[in-house]
């Protein structure tokens, strides 16, 4: 009997070792350790043994069982590990294949520019004001010190609808309207973005429709030095900390004094190149101290109140900033163009 058990142990261990997968191993377990297995069978013959031998034989049987189940356990772990390895091997992928594209769109580049400017000025205490694109002659011209007959308001340059209404030629009427709304009281601190229209033939540098963004500050003690400081903050934020600005005298009917702001050329650093036409400076915007006639017409006492205003073209800024060479690109909406601006800067 003892021999038979030893024999069974050797036989079982051999089969355990030979089991190729978990199923075979389970079969071994069931056939040797199960209730109908050979060990149980052998132990049935225990009754024939002496009382002395019986416990010995019982202990031996348990030993054999433990040895087998121990090996089965070890083998099971091995096989499980092998199965995992096999599965992993089978599940290999080519990680260099492209991922599933996430569908994204993006801002139009002009919106990016406008929002960047809006946010900068909102941070400086400005609100964003908007106004109609079809304007009254009064707000577009008269209220801005451009009385009827002024050469700068030629019929040829504007899209008139009737004698008294036209497509606004700048966003300045929003300034006039906002000042009027404030009824002669300060402070006014606004930024006005929007579409404007001029009677131009569309070409690489002209567009009959384009964007403008203007700013206006009116209060009791607004100085030209404040304008200079404000524009410097703007220029450095938009074009880089290392940009220098300069103000040059200029002329606009609605400001006095009037200036134009240049920034030092990024391309050549000021030494002169084709982008800045050899001057080292690039013109960015027009600005000035609000003309007393404009203040008075909007109901402000020009003895008490002063103000500054500035205005610029997002197209021009986008063209300079991104190197766009043709203004028409902004309005044809070629997706190959639009896609290039999906990068957040």
């Amino acid at each position, binding site marked *: 009997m003892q021999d038979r058990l030893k024999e069974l142990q050797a036989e079982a261990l051999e089969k355990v070792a030979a089991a190729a997968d978990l199923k075979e191993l389970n079969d071994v377990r069931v056939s040797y350790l199960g209730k109908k297995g050979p060990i149980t069978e052998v132990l049935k013959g225990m009754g024939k043994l002496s009382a002395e031998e019986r416990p010995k034989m019982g202990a031996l049987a348990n030993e054999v069982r433990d040895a087998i189940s121990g090996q089965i356990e070890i083998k099971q772990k091995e096989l499980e590990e092998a199965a995992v390895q096999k599965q992993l091997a089978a599940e290999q992928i080519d990680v260099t294949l492209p991922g599933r594209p996430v569908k994204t769109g993006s801002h139009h580049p002009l919106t990016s520019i406008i929002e960047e400017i809006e946010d900068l000025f909102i941070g400086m205490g400005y609100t964003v004001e908007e106004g109609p694109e079809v304007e009254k002659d009064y707000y577009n011209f008269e209220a801005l010190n451009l009385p009827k007959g002024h050469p700068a308001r030629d019929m040829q340059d504007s*899209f008139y609808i009737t004698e008294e209404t036209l497509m606004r030629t700048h966003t300045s009427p929003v300034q006039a309207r906002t000042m009027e709304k404030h009824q002669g009281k300060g402070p006014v601190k606004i930024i006005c973005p929007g*579409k404007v229209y001029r009677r131009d033939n569309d070409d690489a540098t002209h567009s009959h429709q384009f964007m403008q963004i203007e700013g206006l500050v009116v209060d009791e003690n607004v100085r030209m030095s404040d304008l200079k400081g404000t524009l410097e903050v703007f220029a450095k934020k938009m074009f880089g900390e290392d940009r220098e600005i300069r103000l040059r005298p200029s002329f606009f009917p609605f400001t006095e004094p009037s200036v134009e702001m240049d920034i030092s050329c990024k391309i050549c650093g000021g030494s002169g190149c084709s982008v800045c036409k050899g001057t080292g400076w690039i013109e960015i915007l027009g600005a000035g101290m609000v003309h007393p006639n404009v203040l008075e017409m909007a109901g402000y006492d020009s003895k008490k109140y002063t103000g500054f205003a500035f205005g610029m073209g997002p197209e021009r800024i986008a063209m300079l900033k991104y190197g766009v060479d043709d203004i028409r690109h902004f309005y044809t909406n070629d997706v190959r163009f639009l896609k290039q601006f999906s990068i957040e800067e």
Partner: protein
Amino acid sequence: MLVSYKWLQEFIDLEGVSAEELAEKITKSGIEVEGVDKLNEGLSGVVVGHVLECDKHPNAEKLNKTLVDLGNGETVQIICGAANVGKGQKVAVATVGAVLPGNFKIKKAKLRGEESHGMICSLQELGIEGKLAPKEFAEGIYNFTPDTEIGQDALAVLNRDDEILELGLTPNRADAMSMLGVAYEVGAILGKEIKLPNPQPETSAEQASDYISVNVEAKEDNPLYVAKVIKNVKVGPSPVWLQTRLMAAGIRPHNNIVDITNYILLEYGQPLHAFDYDKFGSKEILVRRANDGEVIETLDDVKRTLTPDHLVITNGTEPVALAGVMGGANSEVGNDTTTVLLESAYFTGGAIRKASKDHGLRSEASSRYEKGVDPERVRPAAERAAELMIELAGGEILGGVVEADSLDVKPAVVSTTIQKINKVLGTELEMNQVEEIFARLKFETTVDNDTITVTVPTRRGDITIEEDLVEEVGRLFGYDNLPTTLPVGPSTPGHLSDYQEKRRIVRRFMEGAGLYQAVTYSLTSAEKATQYALEQREPVQLAMPMSEDRSLLRLSIVPQLLEVLKYNIARQNDSVAVYETGAVFLKNGEDELPEEREHLAAAITGLWESHPWQGEKKPVDFFVLKGIVEGLSAKLGLDSQLGFQKAELDGLHPGRTAEILLNGTVIGFIGQVHPTMQKALDLKETYVFELSLKALLEAETAPLQYTAIPRFPSITRDIALVVEKDTAAGNLKRVITEAGGTLLKEVQVFDLYEGEKMEPGKKSIAFSLKYFDPEKTLTDEDIAKAHNKVLKALEEQAGAVLRG
């Protein structure tokens, strides 16, 4: 205005200030210098030579063989192709080794067997535009006057060693349209004195008033008219110094008399006109408005029909000049002219601008009158011109001046205070600094405590108010020297309005959903203006459009986006998804502003999703776009207020179109572009929507409020219904929701079957219903009660039966 650096030095000492430096200084303090043109840039080795012999080239009919004395002891043979070359001429010779514009190097050459040691030059070859060269030299080589010394640098004789400052003048700075004006400006900038011409010509005993009288009818247009008569002149070419100054300023030389009038125009900014006295036709100058239909032939040989809007100079009967714009051909100064009638007049801008515009004629004279000339220079300019005429054309000036003077122009007197100046500029200037600035400008001032009173010379008509004085101080003090500050005073909260904030959310959502933002034109054609309009109204029309395509304001954005799609498809961008936010324009009454309503529109075509190596390609469809509208409304907290109902709209597929409703009101549409339209635009299946963004963003939403996360399990019941094929899922969902009561929290369509296993005319649609009670675990009984109500309602209201 083109300003010669050399000429300017006649009025002001520019020692130590190069043209470049001067340009920089002028730009910074008032007038933008748009460029500095070095006339001899890339030019060298050109001398004055003397043509000793000139014969036909033995082997080439069109060439000449010349022998030219270069004046340095060298005499060379040069082959010259110009037809006008001749023996005895003094010419410009580009010697061997010379460089001409375009880096053209002159080398020894053999032309048809004959050696050529250099090139005889035309003015164009020396960088002067053909249209500026005197007519006789416009083609062929240039001749110097016989007295020109040979051997000297021809470029210096032609004043090519000059630099030209190109001033970009703003309309207020008409004063700088003259050398004198620029001299005043530069004097102020550099703080230097200027030398002014002081004409004091001798006159003969004969009196001009015996020859001519002046009568001005249109006194408002012409407050001052000065006439002078110069007798016995000899008309001929001007000396080279005069010709080159004109050419450098962009004016073509004609003859000495005409050139002098142009020279004075440049020097004084005062336009002059010279008539041939003998051709004038009378002894009377009459200035009046033209008669309607009156005709004048101007110097450019064009016959022009006039109206009373135009001012004319007449000889009492017929016009001899279109005042301030151009002279008449009938009284033109020519080579046979001996007596000159010289006009120097002050015309006001209006009539000149009108005539110049009506006749498309902008001359050096008209552009100055339009912006305003200095009335104080009318007489001195005439004197200076007369003086130059006797100097360069001989003759004598008749005594006295004949004039009509109703001029009432006084220098403006403007006051300001030191406080005002410092308040506006943000500076801390002292009064003496301010006085010094006005002294540099040659403005007279008086100071009384803190007040400075400035007498503004008439040449600076742009200075009329206090702020103008502040500008003069600011610009000459230098904007570079202004402090850099930020506005002080009460702080204001900076923010976007709720509407603007939400509009940004909409844009972010649309972009996150995969659409690119487009910006298109508001102006469109008659056809497109009303296509896809949410509200049909007569479109707003421009009074004077530039083209049919841009003549009306849009009532919808979709046609513009379809145009964007078409443009992209034609360029192999096959899958396009774009959206736009922008105004559409709804006409109100005449002279009333139209209503501008902001819309949101989108258009998609091609593949929506594509991941080729995984075999995925999903083209756009109705539900892709509808999902975006639904997602957007959810983002804005409006999903319970938004609805869709089947509709048939022009330009859209009748079976695939819905109106978008907000609380029952139509605010937009969504659908497939009608196949006929798709075909016309060369588009594949394309879906669009447009809605009133204004309505969407102004809709009231409930404030965001937390709802407790359910603690009890929910129970789901799935039902498959058999219904008539045309039963709308939305309708079934509404029935379910209404009947389900408070326990029914969610209803979703999860299957749709219209296949052949169905009875004809029927379809199967399956819903998943989720019930729960926040207060307790639901019992089967609770659910059965609610669910049976749903089933009953479905059967009664929609004829829906459970699929067996």
